[in-house]
């Protein structure tokens, strides 16, 4: 890092020093990692090119397995995207003070991952060249179209929701002049942190954080409906909407936890991502592992109890049949592992949450697999021959490419924006302490005035 920049940085407060350093200083491992990611992404692009050139025949898809990896990843990524926005929104609205240092990194996940989710169905198209028919010939009864709309809105609102709270920090960087002033001058839109500007900012954030919640909920509900609206066994179920939303938030929390552990390590943020944060998020994870179990149990019991032959074929295919392995791995990853780890305070440590988080991520990916594949392979008509599905190298490469792409973008982002919201921290230090004690006071009964007068 150039000396004059070092001084500039040195002249700033302690938070700034830590949180802005990554913007101007880059380690060797970072470059190695980035390079690796770039390679994987390019490979994924090549795979996609082959697919477009020769047709979806290059995938492992077939009849009746019309959907596969891409749709699985679609649901998975969009699920993850519920990490930031929704959670940070909920925390903001509920004025949970411990949120301050984690919201930014969470919201960032959201914005980046939505993109990678949204392109999956496009990758899955047989005719991507006709993508815009979705607009020219829009057919409003199609859940797929509802999805296009809801995801669009979601993406827009999340971006704004990430951006607005970022402005003060951007302004800060602009003023510090440590990096590309021309760029930050533009993005900081002349924010000077005057009281009324600040007031307006807080107001907007307040509104957004409420607005974004229903949007987020709608998105995954609709994704659930894409399946539920068909008459396929074990898809056609009213539980899918809420089930998907819950699952989304669940995988979201898991994603945040994993991200936090990594960032903490990478940029030495131990002071900002404290054990208490992991503890709290761990509790949320615990709660959701129970919710997940409840929903899953409800869904399968309904199918099983009804005992409709078509449903049962899929049911048994999952529980004891060819999909038993992915199914029970899912149960382990989504329930047992996180539950056992998060139930005990002693394992609600960064390390414990990391393991739990990873388990949940894998489990949730498998959950989508177990939704898409077994049903597809067990058509409703028993005379239809049951097929098989093996993803091809193309699908695998594209999936890896997407994961790598996401990681890469996230890494790049950490070079342009402080991964922890500096001004919100400051605000926390300066006002919240007072504010919170006042608020707490309001929860308590007012101190009673003793009876009797005062004698002179």
């Amino acid at each position, binding site marked *: 890092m150039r000396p004059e920049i070092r001084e500039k940085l040195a002249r700033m407060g302690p938070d700034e020093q830590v949180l802005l350093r990554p913007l101007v200083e880059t380690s060797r491992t970072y470059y190695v990692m980035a390079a690796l990611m770039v390679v994987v992404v390019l490979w994924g692009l090549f795979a996609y090119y082959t697919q477009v050139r*020769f*047709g*979806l*025949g290059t995938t492992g*898809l*077939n*009849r*009746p*397995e*019309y*959907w596969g990896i891409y749709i699985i990843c679609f649901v998975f990524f969009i699920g993850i995207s519920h990490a930031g926005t929704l959670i940070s929104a909920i925390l903001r609205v509920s004025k949970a003070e411990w949120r301050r240092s984690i919201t930014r990194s969470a919201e960032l996940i959201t914005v980046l991952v939505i993109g990678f989710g949204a392109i999956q*169905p496009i990758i*899955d*198209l*047989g*005719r*991507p060249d*006709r*993508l815009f*028919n*979705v607009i*020219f*010939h*829009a*057919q409003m*009864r*199609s*859940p*797929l*179209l509802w999805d*296009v709309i809801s995801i669009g809105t979601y993406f827009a609102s999340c971006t704004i929701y990430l951006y607005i709270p970022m402005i003060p920090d951007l302004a800060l960087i602009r003023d510090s002049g440590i990096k590309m002033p021309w760029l930050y001058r533009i993005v900081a839109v002349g924010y000077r942190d005057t009281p009324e500007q600040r007031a307006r900012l807080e107001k907007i954030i307040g509104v957004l954080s409420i607005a974004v919640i229903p949007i987020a909920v709608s998105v995954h509900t609709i994704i659930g409906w*894409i399946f539920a*609206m*068909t*008459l*396929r066994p074990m898809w056609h179920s009213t539980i899918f909407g809420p089930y998907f939303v819950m699952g989304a938030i669940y995988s979201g929390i898991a994603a945040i936890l994993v991200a936090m552990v990594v960032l903490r390590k990478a940029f030495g943020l131990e002071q900002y991502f404290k054990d208490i944060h992991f503890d709290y998020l761990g509790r949320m994870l615990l709660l959701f592992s129970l919710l997940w179990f409840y929903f899953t149990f409800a869904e399968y019991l309904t199918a099983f109890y009804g005992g409709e032959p078509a449903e049962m074929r899929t049911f048994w295919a999952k529980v004891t049949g060819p999909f038993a392995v992915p199914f029970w791995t899912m149960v382990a990853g989504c329930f047992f592992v996180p539950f056992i780890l998060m139930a005990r305070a002693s394992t609600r440590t960064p390390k414990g949450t990391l393991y739990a988080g990873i388990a949940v991520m894998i489990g949730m990916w498998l959950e989508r697999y177990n939704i898409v594949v077994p049903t*597809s392979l067990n*058509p*409703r*008509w028993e*005379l*239809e*021959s049951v*097929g*098989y599905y093996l993803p091809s190298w193309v699908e695998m490469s594209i999936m890896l490419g997407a994961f790598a792409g996401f990681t890469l973008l996230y890494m790049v982002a950490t070079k342009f924006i402080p991964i922890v919201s500096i001004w919100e921290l400051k605000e926390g230090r300066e006002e919240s302490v007072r504010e919170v004690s006042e608020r707490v006071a309001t929860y308590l009964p007012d101190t009673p005035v003793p009876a009797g007068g005062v004698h002179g």
Partner: protein
Amino acid sequence: MTRWGMVIDLAHCTGCAACEVACKSENNLATVSPSEADGGRAMSWMRVMAEVEGEFPNNTMHFYPRPCMHCDNPPCIKVCPVRATYIDDEGIVGQIYPRCIGCRYCANACPYTVKYFNWYDPEWSDSEREHLNPDVSVRPKGVIEKCTFCHHRLQRAKEQARVEGRELREEDYQPACADACPTKAIIFGDLDNPTHHVAELKEESRAMRLMEDLGTQPKVYYLRPRE
């Protein structure tokens, strides 16, 4: 109100598969390589399904020729984001190949799994191109296709009738599979027209439709085998 439909008499179907091949020939279905066919990518708008029961020597077997059911309430068209599959005012469920974006949602929505996807560009050697049916467009890669009730034959028949200045007769419009069936197990016509055979056959006590409980209102009826 015309509602084209089909009645398939299982008591007369021998499972000979002439209907399958007639359909492939009439509608320019591409053949795929042996390995592709194995991977579940063979296309056959009409497919003769077999239902075998019992153990040797007490077996019974029935054949269910399965085209598109041309549901009156088709789950497949609701889900299409671009209206590339639609139901026309005579009840025929069609595909618009040049518009289809290949999302395969309709294929998943169809409870009868009768939709076929072009995983690759169809391949025809020059000599094979010679026997392509000029009335039916070949599909490009990446789109969904399925039984159309030989819609092109209806259009021709209508024109013919117009030219000759007369009403459309039952025999004017028969799909390729019905034409080919050596045991006349496939009967085709206007379900709402009392003078057409199907109209009365669909009322027979043996008549049933696949997965009637789903409310898809198929316009393909099956006459249960008599045994």
